[in-house]
Structure formats: structure tokens, C-alpha cells
């Protein structure tokens, strides 16, 4: 099962900072994500592509997790060497496509 099978998500950016949001669809799925997708876990996934540490914020009342990577996008949008501008819109799939094992759903 992918994270994207139990959550939706969105990526954003401000200058050097990449931010990723996951929103689960039930309290059980939220609990599962909160336990599994730690800041370190997210950092391992993101560090295949962008550098730096990841800070996690938990929003249990909204079933949401927030991941912030303060140094991921050095120099901002204009300094990127990727094709075109704003590749980071797709960066949420670095989390959504992670396999997280079987589920009893």
C-alpha cells in the first residue's frame, strides 16, 4: 500500500523552503501515518532528491502532518537546475508513492 492510498497531499515552496502536507481520511489512518512517517523517515525519502533536514508538525485535530525542509530549495525557484520552473509542485509524490506495507482496511 502507498501513503497515497490513505492520504492526500500537496507541496509548496517559499524561497529555500520546501513544505509538504499529508491529510489522512480517518483518525486510524492519521495515527498510522503519525507513527510511521517520522521527520527522519520523510528526510530519507526527500534526501534522494533535495538536501537537508526535515521538521514535522502534527495536527491531529485535522488529521494532518506537515513536513518542512528549510534548506531543500537553495536559492529558490529561479536558481533551480531542473527543467522549467516549479518542479517542486510534484515533490509530494516523494511521500505519496512510499510503500507502507499491508493494511487491514
Amino acid at each position: 500500500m502507498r501513503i497515497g492510498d490513505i492520504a492526500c497531499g500537496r507541496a509548496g515552496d517559499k524561497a529555500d523552503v520546501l513544505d509538504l502536507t499529508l491529510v489522512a481520511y480517518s483518525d486510524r489512518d492519521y495515527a498510522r501515518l503519525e507513527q510511521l512517517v517520522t521527520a527522519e523517515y520523510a528526510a530519507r525519502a526527500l534526501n534522494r532528491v533535495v538536501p537537508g533536514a526535515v521538521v514535522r508538525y502534527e495536527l491531529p485535530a485535522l488529521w494532518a502532518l506537515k513536513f518542512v525542509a528549510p534548506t531543500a530549495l537553495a536559492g529558490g525557484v529561479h536558481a533551480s537546475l531542473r527543467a522549467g520552473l516549479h518542479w517542486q509542485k510534484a515533490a509530494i509524490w516523494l511521500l505519496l508513492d512510499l510503500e507502507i506495507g499491508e493494511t487491514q482496511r
Partner: protein
Amino acid sequence: MTQTFNALISGCSDMARRPSSEMFTIGAGAGFAGDRIEPAVLMAQSGEVDAIALECLAERTLVNALRMRESNSETGHDPRLARRLRPLLPHAARGCRVISNLGAANPAAAGHTTARLARDLGIPSLRIASVIGDDVRDRVDEVKWTQPIDDGTWVGAHVYLGLEPIVSALDEGADVVITGRVADSSLVAAAPVQALGLTGDAVAAALTVGHLLECSGQISGGNLTEPGVPDLSVEELARIGYPVADISQDGSATIRLLDGHPGRLNVAACTLQLLYEVHDPRSYITPDAVLDFTSIRFEQVGHNRVRLSGVQGSPRPDRLKVIGFLARRGQIADIEIAYAGTGALARARLAADVLRLRLQRELGIHDFVIDLVGVNSVLGAGSMPLHCEPPELRVHVSARCEDAEMAQAVEDEIYALTISGPAGGGSVRSERRGRVESLAGFLPRASVSATIEWASAA
């Protein structure tokens, strides 16, 4: 007529305001400079909205506007201003206020352009206010930047103004308010705050609504894919409605789509937008309040209707954020060449390897990436594995070059592959980007003042 006030002295809670009704409806007619025109027009035609906010300014567009103003001091507002406002001004004349940051790098010029538009439309009495004062280019040495400023040339620097000058202009009877850099949430919140006379947590709620609405269709089904739910249809996405919010005097609000406007406005979409480009959700800093998003509740109260409650705010910060743009030496060359047909993948990979050698060995460039569009040009090493050979694909090269001559040399190497590289290379596409870096900094609120100018068609 010019009216000056100091942002510190005339705090928004001190302003005399006349609550006109119990509820105010604000619509988000645009979420970026190139956004669609039609949704705002449909909103105005519906007669259901008291004001429309048009968010049309980002780092990239502000840099472009500054470049325009450099070459002609009468320009520097959003080049789409006339196309966007022409269909809206007649509605503004009938009471639907329009608030926008279309002023970009030159809100005064934007005001005059808007006044000429109004005159040409036969509504010369339209009251058009420009908010001046976000441009702090001549104060870059006073700004406390968050990183050292070494080399580079300043393109511009702008402080994020809050909702006060907009509220003030509306108090003075403005039908249209044109600004430069104002915090997006404040741009949207200003009209309801003014009309309802909001204070305290109700202002925080209006700012939260502003944050939710500022990206237009991104809360109503855009940029949204949900597990187990089919994506919106072609017809729905093609006509996607933009959101409006009914704000009450206690700050509670309903975010909704107008009847008959397609989209998907649900709790998940609201939650994603609430947290979009937010860092610490306990402390979202705007010029007008610091917002705590952790206590917020969303409730689906109808089809494409979500109720927002529980917003908490703490007092506004003593310093205002500044965004600065620094042009660095050099250019980024971003170029692609395509291969198609049997063996396309092998020929593309061969081309990539040849380019790697040539850039390093012959041009002495080491700061570059080469990848394959359709395979790994977006997510790089995080891309999904390739399971079959694509029928066609593009080799992409981006290189940091010290000057335009070097960027040209890189481009020439890609073009050279069309005749002396692997077979069939073509469909070359090339672009150059200047290296403009965005920097964040702060100025004391007390040192920042805004001015309102009333535009005339003259």
C-alpha cells in the same frame, strides 16, 4: 488627494468603522498573475459577492514588473491589468468592490491606467485608490536580512504591507483598491474587516479565510487528487469555480462555490490549502495577526460548502517581512532535445553521455544536470522506475553559466547533436534564466508607512 498615515499609530482596531450588515461575502477572483479571467467575472455577475479580491503577484511576477519599470517609469504594473479589470469595473461601479495587487511594482501607474479604463467604459466617477509604500529598495541597508548579502545587484525590495491601508481606502469610499506587495491573506481579508468592523479573533478569522482563498481554485478542486475518489471530469475542471466566503461578525465563515459552479470544495481540500506554504501551523505570521491553525475546525455543511471555526490569533508582529531580489552574475541555460522511435532511449542516453563529456571537458562547466524528460527530469533520483521503453523522450540540460556567451556555447552543443550526434535528435527547445535570488528580511513596523493616492484619468 494624498493621505499619509503611519502603520503603527493607526492600528486597525483603532479605526472607526461602520458595520453595514451582519455578513460579508468576499470572492477570490484570481490566485496568481496568469490566473483565469472568467471566474471573477462570473462572481461579479452573480450579484452574490460584496467584494472580489484578485491576488496576482508572486516573486517571479514582481521581478518581471521591476524590470519593466526599470526601462519605463510609467510601467511596472501587471501587464494583464486592463484585460482583468475591464469586465469587472462596471460591477465595481454598482457596489462590488475590487481589491487587487495588480499594482505590482507601480501601483500609482496602475491606478492611472485603471482610471483611464473607467473613463473609457463611461464610469469616470469610479473611486480608485492606489496603496503606495511597499517599495523599500532605497532602504535595503536598513533591512535585517536573514542571510549575508555578498555579491549581486539589487533588482528591488518590498515590504509586505497589511490590511490597514486598504481598509483606510475603503473607509474613504474606494470602489477599487490597487496595491503592490501586500500579504495575500490581508489583501483578501481587508474588505470584510472594513465592512463588518471586525476586531480581535474575528480579524484572525478573516485573515485565515484570506489565506484559504488566496490561491483561488486550489481550494475548490484544483491541484487535488484524493485516494479512491475519481478526479474531476474534463467539463468540471475546464469550468472550475473559484471560492467565495461568507464571513459573519463573530469571524465564523463558510467557504463555498456559487450554485452551478463545478468543483470539489471539501474538508480535505480546505485542510490542504490551510497548510499550504505554511511552516509552523501554530504560528502563521501575517502583518495583521499571528494565526494559530491547530485549533481550527472544518465541517462540511452542504455540497461544496465548508464551515470554518475555531481560529485563534495573537497580536500582530512588531516587524514586517521584506522580500528582496538580488541579481547574481551569470545565467541558467535550460535546453532540451528529443529522440523518438525504436531505440529512442538508448540514443537519448548516448546523447546525454556525449553532452556530459563536452560540457565538462571542452566548456569546463561543472554545475549542471542532465536528465530525461518523461523519465527523471522532475523528481530526479526519486522518480519511479522505468518499466518499458518510452516511444519518445527528451534529453534535458540545465547549466549554470558565468555569462551569456557560455550559455550560448552550451545551447550550441545541444544543437550540434542534431547533425553530428545520435540519429534523429531534434525538436530542440531552449530558454535562458537570469539568476535572481529571493532574500527575506525584516523592517520595524514603526518605520514603515503607507500612502493612499486617488487616481484620475488625466
